[in-house]
């Protein structure tokens, strides 16, 4: 197992490398003088010259890339001129908030999606199946930001069940209960689309599995139908569900950008949008590389989970 994890980690190195190349190339598309663009309002001649020196901006692109890469590897993602703060500090702080939001949403959508899919498949063409199929269709069609806004209107403004926005109250204690009440709406709104996609896929994966011979064997043994569905069929279906969970994690992370804006959540997505609007290029660059790298590592965890489930994968 350790060997397998090491192997997967090693195979991630070229991907991480590729990610930095892609981000670097996109940023190289910025029209005009890069130092002036990066500095924006702070583009005094001294600052421009210092930045040119730090980032090697006068040098050929390949050299620039390696300077940027080695800076990042030593933990220097540059300094945000808009915030006057090291990019990495800001990203790390914001990423925590995103992790809380996206992590909760991911757990929610994984559980609800798989359960809904299994129930749907087990009652194929029945009332539960039709109901779930309709809700799922609605869920994957509604823009999460619109859903979030409607939730605020209904649950926060009209019913006053949850606070309107933010992660913590401005005054008062930072307890888990307070966090959960702030988290409930954004996490749900964020989870809805992914729940729908996972439910759909789980349903078809279950239907595929339920026709297999080993399901008939389980029934012939006298295993209760509940055991047939939730143990035998679900375990086999998880083999095709888990990779989709990995892909959906990317969509949850993406959707978090909208939800963070709607609910004023102090996450990395909102930070990126702010940075783009303020033309804080180094912040965008650093934030994108960092989050993408975390996502790559998360997908390795997904692969490892898959190999734990399926002994046929060579470890």
């Amino acid at each position: 197992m350790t060997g397998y994890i090491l192997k997967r980690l090693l195979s991630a190195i070229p991907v991480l490398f590729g990610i930095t190349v892609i981000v670097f190339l996109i940023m190289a598309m910025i029209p005009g003088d890069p130092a002036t663009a990066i500095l924006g309002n702070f583009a005094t001649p001294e600052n421009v010259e210092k930045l040119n020196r730090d980032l090697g901006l006068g040098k050929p692109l390949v050299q620039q890339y390696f300077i940027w890469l080695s800076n990042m590897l030593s933990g220097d993602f540059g300094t945000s001129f808009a915030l006057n703060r090291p990019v990495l500090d800001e990203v790390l702080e914001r990423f925590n908030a995103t992790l809380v939001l996206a992590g909760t949403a991911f757990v929610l959508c994984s559980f609800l999606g798989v359960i809904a899919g299994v129930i749907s498949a087990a009652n194929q063409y029945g009332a539960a199946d039709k109901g779930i199929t309709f809700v799922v269709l609605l869920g994957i069609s509604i823009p999460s930001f619109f859903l979030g806004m409607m939730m605020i209107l209904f649950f926060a403004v009209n019913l006053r069940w949850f606070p309107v926005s933010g992660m913590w109250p401005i005054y008062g204690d930072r307890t888990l209960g307070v966090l959960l009440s702030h988290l409930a709406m954004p996490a749900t709104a964020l989870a809805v689309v992914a729940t729908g996609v996972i439910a759909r896929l789980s349903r078809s994966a279950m239907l595929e599995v339920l026709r297999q011979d080993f399901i008939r064997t389980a029934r012939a043994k006298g295993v209760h139908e509940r055991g047939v569905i939730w143990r035998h069929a679900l375990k086999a279906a998880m083999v095709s569900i888990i990779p989709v969970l990995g892909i959906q994690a990317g969509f949850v992370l993406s959707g978090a950008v909208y939800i963070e804006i709607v609910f004023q959540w102090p996450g990395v997505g909102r930070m990126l949008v702010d940075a783009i609007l303020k033309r804080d290029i180094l912040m965008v660059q650093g934030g994108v590389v960092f989050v993408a790298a975390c996502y790559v590592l998360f997908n390795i965890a997904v692969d490892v989970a898959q190999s734990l489930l399926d002994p046929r994968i060579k470890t």
Partner: protein
Amino acid sequence: MTAFFVLLARNRLALLGGIVLACVVFLALITPILPLADPDVTNTSNRFQPVFLDGALLGTDHLGRDLLSRVMWGTRLSLAVGFAAAIAAATIGAAIGIIAGYYGGRTDNIIMRGVDMLMAFPYILLALAIVAALGPGLFNALIAVAAVNVPFFARNIRGITVGIANKEFVDAARLAGMSNSRIILSEILPNVIPVIVIAMSTTIGWMILETAGLSFLGLGSQPPQADLGSMLGEARSALITNPHTSIVPGIMILIIVMSINLLGDGVRDALDPRLKSGALSRPMAATRVDRAETPPAASGVGLLEVKALETQFHVKNRIYRAVGGVDLHVEKGECLGIIGESGSGKSVTALSIMGLVASPPGVITGGAAYYDGEDLIGAPYRRLRDMRGRNVSYIFQDPLATLHPLYRVGDQLIEAIRAHRPIGKAEGRAKAIELLKAVRIPNAEKRINDYPHEMSGGMRQRVGIAMALANDPDIIIADEPTTALDVTVQAQVLTILDELRRSRGLAIVFITHDFGVVAQLCDRVAVMYAGRIVEEGATTDILDAPRHPYTARLMACVPELGGGKRRLEAIPGLPPVVDKLPEGCAFAERCDRVQPDCRSGGIALVRKDGRGVRCVHPVDTREAAE
């Protein structure tokens, strides 16, 4: 193509989606000539007018602009951008995919590595990076959304192209001296276009959502121009005071995306051949029973007695009579063989007994199966489940497919025991090892931790037998248990079954298509053809002198070791399709003794002295002996 549209139209939801989408697109197209207010004229004294007001049907926004007009123009813009992004992504993605798939080798490798890297990003990060570099704006948002969707198309199209590039007609074009670019344009492209269109229909909803999203973030369309996303973004600050300004564009996005999704699902379903054939329907816990007549009473022979069993498969409007009235019985300690070609209904007969025929499409339409006087057909599911594995257990054909691939064999054995009696972990494990030893698996203490894929075919089938024995059943139904095994392993498995029968007094129903196996194991044998028994009797009698021409021909197909001179004769033709059985004898078409009266009326199974034969002109004993 017409069939496709018929199928699509039959799906009412898809039709609804299509109609709604067509209406929205039509309205968006004619927006410029509709009598609407100018969407960009501000009138701050008239701001935030509620809906259904004279002059402004959907009210006005924070600058007093007419919302109905704005939502129509916004829809126009959102649709245009979404479609443009989809077409751009599809074109570029398909081009990349075709080049990678057609040229293969290093080109393919480098391109697909790049595509994989792009796919390693959560899509929005890439889109944000692109917008950050190019600057906010609707056209840049379009580029970003198209760019992040390129890898999806590239990967799909590459897969299809690889398949086509190796086809004969492409080789032929190459040999004819056509240039690569001509082959791509004239041979490859026409074949991938349908795939491109389908991929587009499933992603276009997404692209509309994504561009709306970027506009919502303020990175897409810039004021005063507004698509639906930026309308929502602008309305957000007035969400609590004037929710209608948010709800109007939000609902519009929902309507568009939902109708596209409905239509897309319909397209996908119409193209999926598995849905048509019903191959994706879930088999129920027990076979559906729908008997028109009261089943015949038990006559009291045998531990298990099957009476006039009829099982059908209902697929669409067709009815396949897989089992058309079968009578069987097996005594304690006896081995009954059921033999026949594939499709003769022997497995379906066996599976019907415990309600294990996949349903849908299977339905038991008549007859009974008495176990110790109790009718199992139509027994409540609880009773059936209780008896499965405990009174009657099954051994199936391919042990790799019939054992759960992700559970250790020991756990599967323990589960079989625990399905019927509560026993502790240690005790279950001990019992499982005992069972593995009973089927002579060497090193049982260790093998119990194996996964099925870690065992050989013979070992797996022994596990299958051990599992069938787990609860000391009275009857084992073995459905071609040795067919997937090689001959030496087959012999070992048969020996184990035979020993178990003798030591435990098991009744065995043994299904096979191999007369050699029947001769070795079975006391009596029933020959099935087209869902009916055509001959039955003691194995030795039938082997000595088959009376039904089919039995005789079936035996003639078995090669004899050392009997070199005899010609092996295959039976010409195929068994009849069981949805339209001919009148009279089902074998008449293939029989070399056929006479006119074979083709009329029902032919009964005539029983005499423990032999039964369903034939008007049976082979007489003297003739058969020769």
